[in-house]
């Protein structure tokens, strides 16, 4: 199971990558896609919408189940990845690159609280 060193993680199996001072990119981990199985459907939020911490951000469905991705903190949707809507199998093939879901803009200081580093996340999945 891949757990890249340069990402942060949530205990809900999301990865978070800092792309600028105020924006993070977000997706689900290799472990999460493996647990889900073949992803067949992804529903993304609208660009520009406001989300509160723990809101449902993304719906991810596999052949066997419906899953949700929650907002790790409050912010605004800056961008979404249409490619993963058009080809949900990207989530299985490339969970950390091709299958990012959204870019989320936050205000103020980067809300690190509750996020895990690669080692801590690795431990969580073992």
């Amino acid at each position, binding site marked *: 199971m891949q757990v890249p060193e340069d990402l942060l993680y949530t205990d809900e199996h999301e990865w978070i990558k800092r792309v600028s001072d105020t924006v993070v990119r977000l997706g689900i981990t290799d472990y999460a896609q493996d647990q889900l199985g*073949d992803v*067949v*459907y992804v529903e993304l939020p609208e660009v520009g919408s406001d989300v509160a911490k723990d809101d449902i951000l993304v*719906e991810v*469905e*596999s052949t066997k189940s*419906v899953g949700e991705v929650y907002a790790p903190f409050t912010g605004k949707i800056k961008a979404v990845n249409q490619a993963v809507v058009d080809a949900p199998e990207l989530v299985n093939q490339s969970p950390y690159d091709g299958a990012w879901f959204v870019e989320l803009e936050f205000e103020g200081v980067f809300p690190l609280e509750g996020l895990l580093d690669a080692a801590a996340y690795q431990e969580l999945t073992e």
Partner: protein
Amino acid sequence: MNRSPLHDLHARHGARFVDFGGWEMPVRYASVIAEHRAVRSSAGLFDVTHLGRFRLGGSGARPALDRLLSNDLARIEPGKTQYTMILNDEGGIVDDLIVWWRSADEYWVLPNAANHDRVMAAFSEEPGCEIEDLRPTTVMVALQGPEAIAAFERVLGAAPGRFRTADAMFAGHEVQMAGTGYTGERGGEICINTESADQLVTALVETGVTLCGLGARDTLRLEAGLPLWGADIDETTTPLEAGLGYAVALDHDFVGREALATQKASGITRRLVGFVMEGRGVPRHGYGVRTASGGGSVTSGNISPVLDTGVGLAYVSPPPRLGEAIEVEIRTRMVPATIVKPPFYKR
């Protein structure tokens, strides 16, 4: 938890297991969709050891089959199989099952896994029935797909005809087969003694057959428009409502006949129908359905890997017409869909 004698083989091949009615069975090895496609394009093998199966003989066997089952064995002959149902007095479906009429006085009855005990008990209460439970001593596998028949012939030297029973020898033991399945493809099901099962499956895999989990079996049966007991049909639904009237012979006497005759005369008020999604979204069991004049609820739904769109089965009241536009309630959204006649995919 019950385990198939093939459990170690599955684990060697990287199976993910899940509880299927008290049986720990493979749900997938790697990808459900890849396994689904293997069955549509070549051949796949499913361990279905959890399925019910018992041998029925004795002088009371035929009268019991006639009395308890909705279909009529007079429509077939020894050496053939029949899809049929056991009903309650209200015409509700206690189980849908297959009978293998192996020879003049030997019947195999194959209920759903969850209903094995109940169906076997119903037959054991009928006079003159001799019953042998086959589940403890055998493994059952399904070999399905356009290349399945060739795989049967390579490994067993014989293949069952469509809806026919057949026998073969493997590793010095007799194996029993039938040209049946649950995928909409040619192929068959094989019953083998537990000791030889690993060797048989290994031989089939070596000839290029793909191991498939029960996840793919479910998407395949849905694409083929085949109902699942416990999801699409149960004691509260009748064969007429479920579109299974072809497996009901009202011209013979059986438990539930009277209720069905009454329902047939008065007409059904709801019908199990197929639909294809026109908008984005995956229909799931329990989602609501809205039509111009009524509505209902989804009983099975998923993505069709072949059509690459959502498909499902739903009870709709009043029964809609083919081609009618409907809406499926997917969480907070109403998504358009169209009523179609299953199967969604036909070879």
